[in-house]
């Protein structure tokens, strides 16, 4: 089974080298999508032996993820694992996500930080709000709506449509899982909150931006 990690990255030269190094051995291949980075992200990724797709201009994490998934599928991936470039995820937990998918028990495995880690208070409040919103809009009872660590079967990855270019893609993926009635499972995963990742994290502004993006998305359909 070919397991490919898809890592969307935008100006992550500080962490991408370490992250790619740590992924070694846990997946068959790594596809890094350099989303128009102005720094050495792409170069470092290439040096580390990853397959690199470069967006000439920055399009957003959702867009980068979709590009990576398309590339991975084209290269024959059987299981696709989405993984963050900022060091928040643990490669050791990948097996816990691919397990259910490989076994055929699930078509999608979603990482959940609430089932395991301690979450900073401010972040917790926002995420709980997002949770309620997601339950209402997609009907899915997930405990972590915006976790970049997921695993999909090849078929599921092919079917899921990602049209949201920005952070709203996470909500869109859940909506797609619901729409396609995919069998999914939540898996407890660790989220390492570091100084670096907290700086880059999404705040209250993102929450409203995501709502607005989802609204616009519904208009265009």
């Amino acid at each position, binding site marked *: 089974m070919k397991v490919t990690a898809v890592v969307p990255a935008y100006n992550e030269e500080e962490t991408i080298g370490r992250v790619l190094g740590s992924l070694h051995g846990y997946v068959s291949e790594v596809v890094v*999508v350099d989303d128009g980075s102005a720094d050495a992200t792409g170069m470092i990724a290439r040096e580390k032996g990853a397959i690199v797709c*470069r967006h000439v201009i920055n*399009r957003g994490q959702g867009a980068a993820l*979709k590009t990576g998934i398309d590339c991975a599928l084209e290269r024959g991936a059987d299981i696709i694992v989405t993984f963050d470039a900022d060091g928040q995820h643990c490669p050791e937990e990948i097996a816990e996500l691919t397990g259910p998918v490989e076994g055929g028990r699930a078509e999608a495995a979603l990482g959940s930080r609430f089932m395991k880690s301690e979450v900073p208070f401010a972040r917790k409040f926002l995420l709980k709000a997002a949770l309620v919103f997601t339950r209402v809009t997609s009907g899915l009872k997930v405990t972590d709506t915006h976790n970049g660590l997921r695993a999909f079967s090849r078929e599921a990855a092919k079917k899921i449509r990602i049209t949201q270019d920005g952070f709203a893609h996470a909500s869109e993926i859940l909506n797609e899982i619901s729409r396609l009635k995919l069998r999914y499972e939540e898996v407890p995963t660790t989220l390492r909150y570091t100084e670096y990742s907290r700086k880059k994290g999404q705040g209250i502004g993102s929450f409203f931006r995501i709502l607005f993006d989802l609204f*616009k998305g519904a208009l*265009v359909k």
Partner: protein
Amino acid sequence: MLIQIFIVAFASFAVLRLIFKFRKKVLRAGEFVFWMALWTVAAVIAIIPETTNYLAGVLGVGRGADLVMYVSIIALFYAVFRIFVRIEKMERDMTKVVRRMAIEEQKESRE
């Protein structure tokens, strides 16, 4: 009133440009008729403001000027909505192009 002169002058100017564009075939017949009608109505309202009062009465609105405001606001909301949708579509198209380039370049770079 001065405003009447301004509006009629501007409307005439706009109509002239319309005729020009239509003759040069840059403007389609449907669009030409629409905009001609719009400017004509604007000029008529400017010259005889009472027309709006009549319409306002028919629709149950206070004054003609109020009616013009309501209609304008609704029209603006609609225009903004259309623009939003248009922009969203353009963003998605841009991403499709950028994605295609990214994947093609990656394929090409395989030795």
